[in-house]
């Protein structure tokens, strides 16, 4: 059965302590728990929920060695939570010169494919957990000579990892960069899709943005339906990031997701 869940946010902690029925899987953002003072709380969450651990800052797309300090901290969070799987992004956040702090698309070339493969294997070996990688959204359409679904497919095959399909990111990119998301999905083996991220977008001046603050639009739920027809997804995670989100709002969104799941 496909689990539904949320990414852990402190504003929801009281509600999550009640272990609501619709939260069957809790995604832990690793960087939020790097400080040792959070270890007890982290272990409590891991005792209450089936977890997956998601990182933001390992910058797997940057050629060269991973930041050892970040890797050690990430591995520590994984060790404390014993998640079902771990995840990062098909992107880079830093170079040797500067830490940009947020996700940027990697060029779709052999060089960066090789870097992603090597780094994905490295974190899998280090953490001894299955790894899945997430597609990102960006104002820049990725450059390079490899078609993105082919890039992802080869990455997953060579690295032995799965795909964390951010269905909202896919929808946003397809709108902003003018392509058909279903055609893009046709280039991905559905068996690779382990987890889905989903949330609403905002629209401004004809472009879509991933604010992580909005209810899911119906067209994104329709795209979710399309994926669920063929993909044995294990978990769908609602990614509401705003500090004012309420348990009622999250429950409503998870209910909408569950009703789509029940249709398959």
């Amino acid at each position, binding site marked *: 059965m496909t689990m539904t869940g949320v990414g852990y946010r402190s504003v929801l902690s009281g509600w999550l302590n009640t272990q609501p029925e619709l939260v069957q899987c809790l995604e832990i953002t690793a*960087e939020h728990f*790097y*400080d040792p*003072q*959070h*270890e*007890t*709380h982290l272990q409590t969450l891991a005792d209450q929920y089936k977890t997956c651990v998601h990182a933001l*800052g390992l910058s797997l*797309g*940057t*050629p060269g060695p991973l930041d050892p300090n*970040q890797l050690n*901290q990430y591995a520590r969070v994984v060790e404390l939570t014993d998640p079902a799987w771990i995840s990062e992004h098909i992107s*880079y956040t*830093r*170079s*040797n*010169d*500067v*830490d*940009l*702090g*947020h996700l*940027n698309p*990697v*060029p779709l*070339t052999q*060089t*960066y494919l090789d870097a992603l493969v090597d780094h994905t294997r490295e974190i899998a070996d280090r953490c001894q957990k299955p790894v899945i990688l997430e597609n990102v959204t*960006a*104002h*820049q*359409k990725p*450059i*390079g000579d490899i078609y993105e679904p082919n890039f992802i497919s080869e990455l997953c095959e060579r690295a032995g990892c799965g795909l964390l399909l951010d269905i909202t990111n896919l929808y946003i990119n397809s709108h902003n960069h003018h392509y058909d998301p279903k055609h893009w999905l046709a280039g991905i083996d559905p068996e690779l899709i382990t987890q889905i991220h989903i949330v609403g977008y905002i629209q401004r001046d004809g472009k879509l943005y991933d604010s992580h603050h909005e209810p899911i639009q119906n067209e994104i739920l329709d795209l979710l339906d399309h994926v669920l027809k063929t993909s044995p997804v294990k978990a769908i995670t609602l990614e509401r990031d705003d*500090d*004012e989100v309420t348990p009622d709002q999250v429950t409503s969104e998870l209910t909408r997701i569950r009703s789509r799941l029940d249709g398959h």
Partner: protein
Amino acid sequence: MATENTQPKPTIDWLTLESRLLADRELRSRFILDRQAVAKEQRLSPADLGLAEQIDTNQLEQQAKALIDKRYYEVAELIPLTIQGIGQHSRDLFDVYAQSNWPTGHQRHLTDALQFHTHLRSHRAPGLCRAEANRLRFILDERRCMCRLALDIPIHYHTYPGLELLWRRKGNLHRYVIRLALGKSVPLTPAPA
């Protein structure tokens, strides 16, 4: 025989150049005007020259702006009273600061907020909330406790002059405020979240 002065300088890959372009507005402006010149100046590897030609510079500009926007959003969440205090130019002021400051590490947003606060203070910007900076220093310095005097400690929907005691217990941050009769309280409008 090659000497140190005649050794060819190492080249950089496209990702390194792109990260410089995203972080440096002046470099980006020159790249938009003449990609090949900037690629040569930055010693971009010949293998990656094609990527320099492919990149859509409008989209590159939007991506660069988005990176600053995301930082500003995070900082505004951490020092809301300071952002409110400096008024409608807060985003422009942040832009000036952010171009040459790129904090690292998993606490980068906290560092960003504190460094921005320090930047504003060094430029004598009015409307800063010292209590917010004190709190950030306490978290970043990993202190067990701290006691600071501030004239603008937020309590409910006002700020007050007082002595603020911050301490950690079981991973949680606690605070206790002793209000001092040094001046009037200032109402916060709108009331903070």
